[in-house]
């Protein structure tokens, strides 16, 4: 009988994960009968699938992801936004002004101008075109205030935690509000300076120590201590 591989292991590109016939999820590739890792990360074998949780790399747009972007240009009937990826997000004018409307350049600029920060959803993405983003939903749209933090996109799941546990913990103990984009950008807004600094420190901590098992306890400890 084949020995069962331990559940989570640190792997590097090319490292062998398993020979079991499992469904391939993210960051793994099948070479012959062997499933191998394609990135630096943690291998995770569940009942029927194998994947590697990456510890490095940029953001790749995925439909329905919530992202934070910066408007880089206003052209014709659309805006282009930097979404911290190799592709630019495209926001159509009709998404903001409604179908069949033809806003003028001034109207476009009044609504969203170069440099504005938006919280948006990836509406559509295929290999042929730039990802389409949308702000036509509640909670989406321009972000007017807050502190913009950039962390590695691979740390976002860790920052959110299981069912949002990490983010809730940070918000509860600092009175800050965190707007988290899947692309590695986070907007922190908080009335008190101390809470803001603490929330920022917690985010930085998640960014630096995401691979550690006892991260939640460490962040908790840090948040409980007074002062930063």
């Amino acid at each position, binding site marked *: 009988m084949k020995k069962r591989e331990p559940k989570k292991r*640190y792997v590097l*590109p*090319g490292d062998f994960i398993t020979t079991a016939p499992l469904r391939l999820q993210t960051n793994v590739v099948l070479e012959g009968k062997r499933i191998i890792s394609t*990135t*630096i990360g943690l291998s995770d074998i569940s009942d029927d699938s194998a994947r590697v949780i990456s510890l490095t*790399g940029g953001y790749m747009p995925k439909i329905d992801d919530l992202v934070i972007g910066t408007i880089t240009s206003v052209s014709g009937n659309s805006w282009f936004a930097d979404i911290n990826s*190799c592709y630019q997000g495209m926001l159509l004018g009709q998404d903001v002004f409604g179908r069949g409307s033809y806003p003028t350049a001034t109207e476009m600029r009044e609504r969203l101008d170069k440099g504005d920060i938006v919280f948006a959803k990836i509406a559509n993405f295929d290999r042929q075109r730039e990802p389409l983003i949308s702000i036509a939903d509640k909670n989406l749209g321009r972000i007017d205030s807050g502190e913009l933090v950039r962390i590695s996109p691979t740390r976002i799941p860790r920052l959110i935690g299981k069912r949002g546990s990490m983010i809730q913990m940070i918000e509860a103990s600092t009175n800050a509000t965190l707007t988290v984009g899947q692309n590695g950008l986070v907007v922190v807004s908080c009335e008190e300076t101390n809470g803001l600094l603490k929330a920022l420190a917690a985010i930085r901590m998640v960014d630096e*120590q995401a*691979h550690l098992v006892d991260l939640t306890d460490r962040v908790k400890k840090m948040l409980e201590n007074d002062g930063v």
Partner: protein
Amino acid sequence: MGGREANVVLLDENGIRSDGRKVNETRKVTIKAGVLKNANGSAYIEFGGNKILAGVFGPRDVHPKHMSNPDTGILRVRYHMEPFSVGERKKPAPSRREIEISKVIKEALEPAVMLENFPRTAVDVFLEVLQADGGTRCAALDAASVALADAGIPMKDMVCACAAGKAADALILDVNNEEDQAGQADMPIGYMPNLGKITLLQLDGVLTPDEYKKCIELGLEGCKQVYEIQKNALREKYFSSSDNS
């Protein structure tokens, strides 16, 4: 045959080479991953007297646009030697040799990187040779591979490289500058250790078919040793300060 200078003792009667190594011994290799802040991935390698810095950017927009490929991402490599990397000042403009090495390193990395998920983008690899001491293309390839992994570019395998060759009628591992100048053959090998595939193979000099086979075997041994060092460099950056390894 093929030797150019005879006044250096490349191999003494005890089988010790000009720099004190045995025939099947590589020079001291140290690699550090993630040394540059502004690059997406980076690595620094010291391969004997070679000192090389590698920086990786991307996947990112392709400029000029006509170079982009709608089916896949493209890999671009620039190997460059600093003017102060060699004894006599080297002109900083890319020479014929540097253009060739950029090409062979690119082609040695291409089988490993998986850019088909990043159409219309480019991954740029910059390799700066700060100090050269023979075998820079292998050392640069080693650094490039670590930097690509550090940047999170999906790869089927790491690429490790080491040269083997022939000097004073003996097969030697990891040819240094003197052995390259005065020796009989130099064979850089790039290798994907887990897939067992050779991605770079060049040969400058003359070997018999038998020597050729032995030389490849020797070179692959060197590659495997370098691979362990590459892995340790990445582990140190990503997995240190944790108990699970």
